[in-house]
């Protein structure tokens, strides 16, 4: 068994699960199966049997593929020793629904985990997450059937609401509000091709066992060589003499975000129609774009201030400070600006120092929309006229990071949901921010303008959380090790 001792990403791709390296955009269909373990040894046998099917990062997947992740409870059930388990990140050990975490993530009111469909205190506990991807629905269903037929026989239970479907990725890349999504992703430094420096992030920010943006190794579970007698795992690169269970693994954050699409466009319409009656489509679209930071087609406000520009729909090489320090073009509180501030924050905005700090708070996004789009075109006029009352659509938000507290939770609490972001007073993220309980409290959104800003003080919640969890996405060797653990 080759145990790689180097921290060069491209030499480790066989051991990294493919979903870290690629978003599988070509595999437009997907579903996520949450599972409970009723029989640990049967489950481990099953794990051992599917190991070769787990997609690694070396090659792009074929017509379909799977990846797998575990909760803390799941790892415990499978027999991992207490002294290993305590070395996982504290956030992972505690899970996503502690009282403190609820405050940090603003999972309150309608988004309170008590109301969740999965992952909450009133839902069946989750032990593992099986991620299915397919070129189309047929491929996906075939793959799913193949695996789900094995659950019963192997001590795995798919409880109520545990199969999370997604809707096929659209050619225009749009999510349910009608905006192209997933344009901006951090790139692994030194891995592939030419990346702008500001977007080139140390691998250790997303994978354990690599130097992170502090040039240090994030803590990860290390075990004694005597406990890995088959030498399955890699050696610890920090020369502790131990074996690294976390190597080539990552933490996966999953949050099911229901989107209130009609409410969104109703708000835009109500706040931009000049006489209270006729819609003003351009202003309506512009207000929405100001909230998001990009036009529906994806073109960023910073590069296309007045109108969308299709040629810029995938544009991502821009910064904020020099072009727009006061947010006159792209509001300071807009969604893309505050979830990735690039060079706008202290210290010394506009400089390398600012970007260096920014690099310590990035996430790799791997989410997929779920639920039927309100209309096929996602045209706002059509949406407003639609009588679809299902509200069962949104985003299965998934992200990967090595340090949940410094990355995902930081973005959520210190940037996105922070009413005080960038010197603002009452502005949480307009799109995903928590604006208070629906009856009575509302959010504020400020659009800087000359001479005087436009301020909207009546924002309702446009999203509601319906489920969530923290998972560990192990390296392939680590999965083999987990499958072989003798309790």
């Amino acid at each position, binding site marked *: 068994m080759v145990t790689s001792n180097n921290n060069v990403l491209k030499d480790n791709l066989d051991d990294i699960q493919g979903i870290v390296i690629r978003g599988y955009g070509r595999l437009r269909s997907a579903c996520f199966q949450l599972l409970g373990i009723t029989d640990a040894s049967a489950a481990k046998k099953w794990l051992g049997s599917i190991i070769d099917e787990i997609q690694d990062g070396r090659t792009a997947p074929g017509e379909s593929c799977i990846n797998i992740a575990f909760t803390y409870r799941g790892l415990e059930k499978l027999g991992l020793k207490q002294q290993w388990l305590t070395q996982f990140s504290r956030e992972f050990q505690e899970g996503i629904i502690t009282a403190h975490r609820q405050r940090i993530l603003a999972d309150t009111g309608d988004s309170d985990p008590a109301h969740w469909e999965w992952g909450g205190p009133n839902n069946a506990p989750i032990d593992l997450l099986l991620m299915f991807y397919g070129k189309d629905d047929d491929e996906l269903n075939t793959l799913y059937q193949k695996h789900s037929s094995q659950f019963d026989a192997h001590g795995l239970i798919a409880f109520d609401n545990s199969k999370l479907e997604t809707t096929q990725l659209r050619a225009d890349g749009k999510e349910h509000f009608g905006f192209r999504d997933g344009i901006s992703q951090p790139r692994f430094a030194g891995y592939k091709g030419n990346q702008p420096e500001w977007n080139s992030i140390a691998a250790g920010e997303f994978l354990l066992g690599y130097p992170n943006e*502090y040039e240090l190794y994030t803590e990860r579970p290390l075990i004694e060589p005597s406990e890995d007698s088959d030498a399955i795992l890699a050696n610890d690169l920090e020369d502790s003499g131990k074996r690294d269970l976390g190597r080539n693994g990552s933490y996966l954050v999953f949050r099911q975000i229901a989107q209130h699409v009609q409410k969104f466009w109703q708000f835009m319409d109500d706040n931009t129609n000049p006489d209270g009656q006729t819609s003003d489509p351009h202003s309506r679209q512009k207000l929405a774009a100001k909230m998001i930071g990009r036009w529906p087609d994806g073109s960023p406000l910073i590069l296309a201030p007045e109108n969308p520009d299709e040629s810029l729909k995938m544009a991502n090489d821009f910064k904020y400070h020099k072009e727009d320090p006061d947010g006159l073009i792209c509001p300071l509180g807009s969604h893309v600006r505050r979830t990735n501030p690039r060079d706008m924050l202290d210290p010394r905005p506009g400089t390398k120092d600012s970007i260096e700090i920014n690099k310590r708070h990035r996430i790799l996004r791997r989410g997929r929309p779920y639920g039927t789009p309100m209309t096929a075109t996602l045209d706002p006029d059509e949406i407003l006229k639609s009588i679809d009352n299902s509200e069962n659509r949104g985003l299965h938000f998934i992200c990967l990071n090595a340090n949940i507290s410094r990355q995902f939770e930081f973005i959520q609490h210190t940037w996105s949901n922070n009413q005080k972001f960038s010197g603002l007073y009452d502005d949480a993220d307009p799109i995903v921010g928590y604006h208070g309980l629906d009856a009575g409290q509302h959010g504020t959104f400020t659009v800087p303008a000359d001479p005087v800003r436009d301020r909207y003080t009546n924002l309702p919640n446009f999203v509601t959380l319906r489920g969530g969890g923290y998972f560990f996405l192990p390296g392939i060797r680590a999965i083999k090790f987990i499958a072989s653990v003798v309790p």
Partner: protein
Amino acid sequence: MIDQDGLTLIAPIRAGEKEALESLLIDIGSNPDKNEILPFGILGDVHFARIFIIEGDQLNGIGLAPNLCLISVFDGPLSAHINQLVNVLGSGLEQVFRHCEGYPDSSERIQQRLLDFINAHQHHNNAFYVNTVWRTVKQIESEKVLREAIEAFLDRPENKNRWKNLDAIQVREEIRKFVGKQTDLKWALQRSFKECVEDLLWKLKQCLVLLIVLGTLLVLSPILVPVGLIGLLSIRYLEKTDVSNLSRSDAARVKSLREDEDQNVTNQFSAAGFIKPGIIRFITVNIVLIAINFAARYVLNRGNLAGVTTIHFARWVIFDGGKRLIFASNYDGSLESYMGDFIDKVAWGLNAAFSNGVDYPKTDWLIFNGAKHEQNFKYYIRTRQLKTHVWYSRYNGLTAVNIENNSEIRNGLVGTLSLEHCRAWLRRL
């Protein structure tokens, strides 16, 4: 111009009374503003206050009793503050202090008992940081009201469309007119002569002090430089044998600490620890704190602590005969972002200030490494942090940056501004 100062009271807790005291503090802490025992809200010029217990510990095998610590930040002279506490919160304070050793049992008046006790247990703040010197509670509150009134004025439906047809100078004039018509706001339009004079005098004093200090340091440098080098080399030598017993703080402790965090936009941080033994470390701590205290007063006194803009107040207090150090601060955002800020921007400052504490992550030459070991430092912090049962904050919901912005909004109302300055000023609203 009214100074801000801090009271630090440390008193050993009577044997066996820690639990009773704790439950009393929890009662008070459930509503620090308006509880029945110590309603801090009735003190008009107190910015923050807290009460916490410094846990009992061991030093060289000798058990150390737990201590009660009461800390406050206020406007005006210390003596006036103590008098106010005694007169207004006397009976509540006595309920708390009764659990402390040496609380007078005499038949004297309650005020006398309290004064005696407070004076006996008051500690000097070795370093005291104020975000913006002379910004009083009254100023903060009145500038908040001012801003909210102006924002509401700008948002009035009949006004919203007018602005587009005016330039920045005209809009500012409209705002000034509006402010001038409000009896409770028109004070904002002018600076009093007294204010201007005091401002100027302070600036002069600042320059003078800095010149004198720098001059003195320069003159003494033939002595100071070699002494400093010897000191630094001694530190380096000690660092080589420093041991940092780093382990993660236990989960239950962190959970308990987190219960109090992020209830609001501002948080408190209270910590205590042992200073590393030996004369070199002791001297270093004292020098560093003198330097911080000086810098806080004369250099870093307008909103910016070496790049960190989120701290309202902070203090360092050496106690227990020079063996231990308390650190207490009020800051905005989560502890994670607060720590991250320091690690990213001022790690050297953290190292200078705290590496003389036992178990601090290893430093090199006093200021290198240490806090830069991001995760180690974050774990270390939690092992020193103390549960703060009572925490009172006067102006919840305002960050330091908000408060500064409110001041600048007020400042921008005074006199005339160029078009460019008007534009910039309006962007604050």
